[in-house]
């Protein structure tokens, strides 16, 4: 096996047209680039509504969308529900941002009080809100500090025992009340953070792709990456928003 080919890693981006607002496709691009820099061969699949599921899926991503976008993907998501739940339970790493985070939860309660069931991968329930939570965010997570930008009207509450993705050092988070942000079950991370979240948080990006690489090849052999720009972008937001380096 050559140094430049430690193995193929298949990335699946769910609904790139409908659910990748605010640059969320940048997460997929970031992972593909970093896999390449680490010496792996990324294969990116965009899964569109009605299409066949790719033969291999080692890492699954989803982003935010307009209300109209969510409506368009609903049927297909129902068709893929069992498969996604199985992959999640099996430990496949997934990153679901904003709208897809909500859809991976137990349910979404609309402003009018209607209850729309979600995939139930994450034990979270989101209630529609008339006011939006908007602004830059800093979190403390298992992957170190994480910076990003939230823009959501849904207010999300974790079920009992549901682990959050992080705790809020700056910003609103899941609901603006309990200082939690996102949710994590097995290797599925749900979060409201755009930015997009991965480029300026290389530890999170590598955390996800390390899990995927280990599952595919049995090990993770990192390459030598120059993350000085990412680290500087990251650290500047942390200092600016929380007042000190962390």
């Amino acid at each position: 096996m050559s140094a430049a080919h430690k193995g193929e890693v298949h990335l699946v981006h769910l609904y790139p047209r409908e659910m990748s607002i605010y640059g969320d496709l940048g997460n997929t691009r970031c992972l593909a680039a970093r896999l390449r820099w680490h010496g792996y061969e990324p294969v990116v699949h965009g899964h569109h509504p009605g299409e066949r599921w790719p033969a291999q899926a080692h890492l699954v991503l989803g982003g935010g969308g307009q209300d109209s976008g969510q409506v368009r993907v609903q049927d297909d998501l129902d068709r893929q529900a069992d498969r996604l739940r199985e992959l999640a339970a099996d430990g496949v790493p997934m990153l679901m941002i904003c709208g897809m985070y909500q859809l991976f939860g137990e349910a979404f309660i609309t402003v009018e009080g209607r209850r729309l069931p979600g995939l139930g991968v994450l034990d979270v329930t989101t209630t529609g809100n008339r006011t939006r939570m908007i602004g830059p965010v800093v979190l403390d997570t298992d992957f170190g500090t994480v910076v990003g930008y939230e823009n959501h009207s849904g207010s999300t509450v974790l079920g009992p025992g549901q682990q959050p993705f992080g705790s809020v050092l700056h910003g609103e988070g899941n609901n603006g009340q309990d200082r939690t942000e996102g949710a994590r079950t097995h290797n599925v991370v749900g979060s409201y953070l755009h930015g997009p979240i991965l480029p300026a948080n290389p530890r999170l990006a590598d955390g996800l792709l390390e899990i995927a690489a280990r599952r595919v090849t049995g090990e993770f052999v990192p390459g030598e990456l120059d993350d000085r720009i990412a680290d500087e972008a990251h650290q500047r937001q942390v200092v600016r928003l929380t007042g000190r380096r962390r």
Partner: protein
Amino acid sequence: MGVIAGLRTSGAIAAGKAARVASRMRGGGSALPGLVAERVDPAILQHTLGSLPRGVVVVSGTNGKTTTTKMVVALLRAHGLRVFTNPTGSNFTRGVISALLGEVGISGRVDADVAVLELDEAHALKFAEVVAPTHALLLNVARDQLDRFAEIDHTARLLTTLAEQTTQAVVLNADDAFVSRIAGQLAPGVGVQWFAVDPAVADRLPEIQEADVRFDDPADAPTLGDQDGLLLPHDERSFTIRFPGGVDVGPLTLRQRGLAAMINATAATTMARVLLGPDWDAATASSALEAVHPPFGRGEVIDVDGAPLELVLVKNPAGFTVALGTYGNEPVATMIAINDNYADGRDVSWLYDVSFESLRDRGVSVTSGVRAWDMALRLRYDAVEVDRVEADLDTALDAFLGLHRGEPTRIFCTYTAMMHLRRRLATRYDLARFGEDPDA
């Protein structure tokens, strides 16, 4: 309006004028006088604008408002109309009132035949609640980065409501499904005119406008009629606007480059033609368009010791993509300055919806602004080399101009970064005063 209301308006104008003088003496605050007058009498707009003989034209949409408004004004003035307009960039209701206060007498009359106003989507609607526009020119709906337009669907709804309030005619973009769909929502008797791009170049549109992903097929494109304007580009700068039922405008060449500017010219021309009716003259229109200077920051060229420096405002993915497409085939030394203040859009995620590959050959000399490092990081993911990252705008500008003395240079910048850089440049080079247009 009764005597009391009339007195209130006079009082409002006097109060606003006093505030305008006061704020001028303090050297700033262009929105303040409008705010004062608006508080005294919100009907001030209705009183002063509602009775203009040729009506009130509102120009709205996400991209191209300022350029298009300038073009409509130039076209109407070339045909001899006296036009009241809001100054470049002050596209808020209060900015309109501020501008009015400079022009009305204490009687509340403005000496004009017609008003042509650039209003952003939300403020256009507030404005229309007070003064129903006679004409509306609706350009496009793209995702803007200002947080108040979080949803593109919401923006489309705002424009639809604006069109519903319009009393005589609307001019709509036939190539933008968000806009063309508005034609079904108009009050009875309100005319619709279209502007469109020659289908032969329509494949270039996806890169400059947002696609509506809700439908599998593109929405049924409207069929163009005799009085609609069709853009026929010849090259990057010259084009003809064809009205099947009339005389062509052009071939002509704008001072601004690129397809987006040509589309703006087509939109403006279609609007002016509707408004002028029998007074319309194609040759007059053509020379008027050729004389329009780009608004500052929209492809403005500054003479830096004999070498041209272009300042290019970027504010959303569609706009940045247009700018890169327009300038990409003439690569020069490039700086990119990204701030994340409210007026820039506080979320920089959108930079990941733009492809920077056209900058790969030449690289980027400097990234700057509050988010200089995030911009450099974005470029790294498109394999574009960055020579230097310097968050401080003044230091970055000095370094950039020092490195490229005597060469043509270009700076892509967000709104507040542009304001800052331009202020800095204005003190050194012979520029029109900050915030003013050389020929407005």
